[in-house]
């Protein structure tokens, strides 16, 4: 049978039709050695790129791995079939750390072309041993091998902190070396590699490179995040450079440096002074601020904030609508302060609703005590678009006065849920600040009428502010029979805020409400009201998963110990939503025995539950967390291993060791990527 299969695959790999050969390549991992290895090499050397690509992809599944690695590594010496050579590199990189010994072994026997390829393999499967070999290769007599090795060292962060430090030292030394002086491409590669490692290069090392036109752009890019005063000065000046690409690079680097120096007024002032004095730089920033490319646009917008020209406000305001640069636009507008208000109002006039809304939301931040912005915010309440009304309500939550109560209250019944929710928040906030006027507006409201919703919201706010009135509970009890679920729910929340036996009794009735949203609000209210006995009893009898989850969470608010006792057996519930709620409760109470309890959930059949438990255990940050995560990174499910990798990345050198050990054995490309990402983040976080 196996022999027949080998014969069929061998024949198919010589078929004239590439699609037939590609499909045959997919069967190679099912063949025995040594035929599997032999046919893999044949497929890697196929004349059609699709067959070669397929062969590289399946190479990770061909056994025995060591034999495969050394056989494929020998193909790096190939001179005639360039396709085979390149496919061999790709296959070895996909195989990962297991391929590193083969590539190191081959390096000493290959000519310059072959050494360059072996170096590419070591760069593509980063390990400490590989990086040490790349350091050696960075002294190779062939400059192309040196450049490849230097580029590879830029990935050292994926091989751990020791590798990263080794690479950073090597690359920084290389910058001032003789080989760099003779070969600018080595310097460019070293600068790019250092940037990839997010290494801070001393400005004294970068400044001399600016005189070389070939190196200037790379040096400017490598200065990103540098906060030496001369670096900030040079970057600000270079924005005015006639070369658009250099100017763009300088803008992005300055943006990063400004982020680093943001809280140091003297450093920021260096850039500010220079940008304001340079019309050419200003003009360039305006162009970049209109680009769609996010890093350049964000940096330009931040720099325009330093220039503080009111004519730029509309340009900056445009960026408020774009998620990726909105934060920088907000920061830039803050630099204008009150000066931005008028141009911002003008920018908002006649603009699309999303921009009108964005400008309205900024106004209170820029001039909280001024009347003009407040007038604009109030006018916005009459806008036909919810995208404007909701931000206006959010702004009034911050700066609204007693006179705004009525207008805001009207919006609580909006058909648009965004608006209704924003009105709820604003009404609560204003009522808490203006207790007496809020109390006055409650007079004469019918608890079963249309105004009952806002009245319940106001009563809750007053109760939270310690200004509940004796008549409030009676009003709310009546509102519990309102025809609208939203009113009943708000009445429950308000009763919970008032507290007391009567409130608890009234809320209990709503447990049977036909609307889930009302019944769940009643359960939560019982938690706030401290009704532990009642909730424990409910926990014992409730079967509905969502309801039970809500009950044990509410019980946690009322009595953490009883909540723990109730939740613990639920950690193994076959219903994932119940187990998830139990993890939330057990993790939150932090009582003795909670860690052991959480551990018991790490072999739950639902992977999402396992991840939740691991997340809670990782918060301990101690030996127990390491033990649990070391076990989880061996889990059958990729999703759990990826989660464990990310959590281990935050657990210091011990976590890193576990990750590194797993990286050497991990076969899944996706999990390997997660491990490398965790190691890289750990590495950049440690700097």
């Amino acid at each position, binding site marked *: 049978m196996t022999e027949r299969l080998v014969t069929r695959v061998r024949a198919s790999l010589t078929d004239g039709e*590439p699609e037939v050969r590609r499909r045959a390549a997919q069967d190679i991992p099912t063949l025995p050695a040594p035929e599997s290895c032999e046919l893999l090499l044949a497929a890697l050397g196929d004349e059609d790129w699709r067959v070669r690509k397929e062969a590289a992809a399946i190479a990770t599944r061909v056994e025995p791995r060591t034999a495969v690695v050394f056989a494929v590594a020998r193909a790096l010496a190939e001179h005639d079939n360039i396709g085979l050579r390149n496919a061999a590199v790709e296959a070895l990189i996909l195989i990962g750390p297991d391929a590193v010994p083969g590539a190191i072994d081959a390096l000493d026997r290959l000519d310059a072309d072959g050494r360059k390829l072996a170096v590419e393999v070591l760069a593509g499967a980063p390990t400490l041993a590989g990086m040490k070999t790349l350091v050696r290769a960075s002294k190779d007599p062939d400059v192309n091998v040196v450049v490849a090795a230097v580029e590879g060292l830029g990935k050292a962060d994926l091989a751990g902190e020791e590798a990263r430090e080794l690479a950073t030292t090597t690359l920084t030394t290389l910058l001032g070396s003789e080989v760099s002086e003779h070969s600018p491409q080595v310097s460019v590669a070293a600068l790019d590699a250092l940037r990839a490692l997010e290494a801070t290069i001393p400005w004294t090392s970068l400044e001399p490179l600016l005189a070389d036109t070939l190196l200037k752009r790379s040096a400017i890019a490598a200065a990103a995040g540098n906060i030496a005063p001369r670096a900030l000065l040079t970057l600000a000046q270079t924005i005015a450079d006639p070369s658009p690409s250099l100017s763009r690079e300088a803008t992005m680097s300055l943006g990063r440096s400004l982020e680093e120096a943001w809280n140091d007024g003297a450093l920021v002032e260096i850039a500010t002074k220079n940008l304001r004095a340079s019309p050419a730089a200003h003009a360039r920033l305006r162009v970049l601020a209109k680009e769609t490319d996010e890093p350049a646009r964000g940096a330009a917008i931040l720099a325009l904030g330093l220039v503080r020209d009111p004519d730029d406000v509309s340009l900056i305001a445009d960026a408020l609508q774009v998620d990726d640069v909105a*934060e920088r636009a907000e920061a830039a507008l803050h630099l204008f302060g009150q000066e931005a208000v008028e141009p911002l109002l003008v920018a908002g006039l006649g603009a699309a*609703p999303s921009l009108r809304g964005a400008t309205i939301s900024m106004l209170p931040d820029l001039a909280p005590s001024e009347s003009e912005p407040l007038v604009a915010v109030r006018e916005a309440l009459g806008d036909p678009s919810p995208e404007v009304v909701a931000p206006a309500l959010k702004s009034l939550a911050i700066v609204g006065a007693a006179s705004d109560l009525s207008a805001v209250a009207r919006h609580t019944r909006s058909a648009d849920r965004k608006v209704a929710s924003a009105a709820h928040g604003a009404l609560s906030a204003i009522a808490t600040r203006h207790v007496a006027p809020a109390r006055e507006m409650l007079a004469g409201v019918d608890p079963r009428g249309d105004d009952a919703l806002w009245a319940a919201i106001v009563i809750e706010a007053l109760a939270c502010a310690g200004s509940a009135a004796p008549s409030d509970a009676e009003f709310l009890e009546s509102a519990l029979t309102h025809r609208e679920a939203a009113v009943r729910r708000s009445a429950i929340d308000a009763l919970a805020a008032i507290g007391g036996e009567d409130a608890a009794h009234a809320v209990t009735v709503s447990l049977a409400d036909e609307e889930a949203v009302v019944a769940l609000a009643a359960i939560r209210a019982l938690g706030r009201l401290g009704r532990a006995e009642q909730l424990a009893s409910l926990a014992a009898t409730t079967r509905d998963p969502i309801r039970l989850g809500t009950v044990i969470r509410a019980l946690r608010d009322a009595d953490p110990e009883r909540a723990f006792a109730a939740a613990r057996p639920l950690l193994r519930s076959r219903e994932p939503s119940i187990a998830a709620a139990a993890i939330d409760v057990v993790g939150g109470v932090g009582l003795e025995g909670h860690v052991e309890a959480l551990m018991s959930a790490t072999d739950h059949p639902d992977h999402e539950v396992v991840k939740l438990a691991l997340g809670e255990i990782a918060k301990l940050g101690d030996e127990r967390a390491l033990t649990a995560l070391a076990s989880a990174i061996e889990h059958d499910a990729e999703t759990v291993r990826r989660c464990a990798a990310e959590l281990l990345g935050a657990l210091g050198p011990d976590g890193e060791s576990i990750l590194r050990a797993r990286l050497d054995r991990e076969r899944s490309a996706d999990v390997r990527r997660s491990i490398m990402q965790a190691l890289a983040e750990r590495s950049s976080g440690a700097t």
Partner: protein
Amino acid sequence: MNAVKKPLFGGRRGPGEPQLRADEYRLLRDLVSERLGIWFGPESRSSLERRLRERLNVRGLTSFADYYQLLKYSPLAGEEWDEAGDLLTTHETYFFREDYQLRAFQQELLPMLAAKPRRRIQVWSAGCSTGEEAYTIAMLILESGLFDPTAGWELRVYGSDLSKKCIAAARRGIYGPASFRATSDEARAKWFVPHEASEPAFGSGGSARTVSGQAGHAGLHGVVPAARTLCHFTQMNLLDEERTQLVGRCDVIFCRNVVLYFDAAARRRVIEMFYDRLVPGGVLLLGHAESLLNVTTAFELLHLKEDLVYRKPLLPSSVK
């Protein structure tokens, strides 16, 4: 690896609005990736927080952990995913976008399709946002003059998108100035008619989220009936295998600037689904920044004069 952007203010939040913690971000990010395929990298935490924060307000939730529970376990999860999907996807589009690719479609692919023995053409605009791409394809098919319906040609353009709001806008087929940024006057005169505004339009500053816009309802145009008749729109998650089966077999699939937002696993799943949905010899067109490198080897590269596209091989009979 992407550098994590340093937050300058930690994102603006209203009073009492929750912050997205690192552990909550991990859970939500993975859930979004699993359900929608969209991948948020380490640099995107504040972006995810901004986009989803309003949903917490609307649902009256006090933490992103609660929102995760809602999306994962609540009976309301289905309707909430519609809202979340709308907020998490990008709706940037306009008529006659990436004209080099459209020229390749009109001048080279359509003549190939016209030579087919079976007089039926189906094109899928996957991730059509508010419909501009699907209508553009319909206009190009009609303009080619190669497929006369009275001569028995059956023509259909499917547009699908994750966002229900976008599909509603596509079905309305009424657009504002922002949708016409790459439309010639000639094309505008031929394929659109002025529209009296009684309802909001996309790209006009109406109630739907806009790409960019102008005030009021000035400059609204509707797609002419001839092009509208060809286009059928439906809300669809490209990872939903049951739903994607309903599209049927396609001759051409446009999926431009969609899979670049997906993680590797989702990208593979979607591309495999496209392969399955294409007729042998059918063509897949991706955005200019997208490729199938390291995704699949199942497609052949087809070199056109102005573009490089992916073709499902015509299987030889000897191949299973």
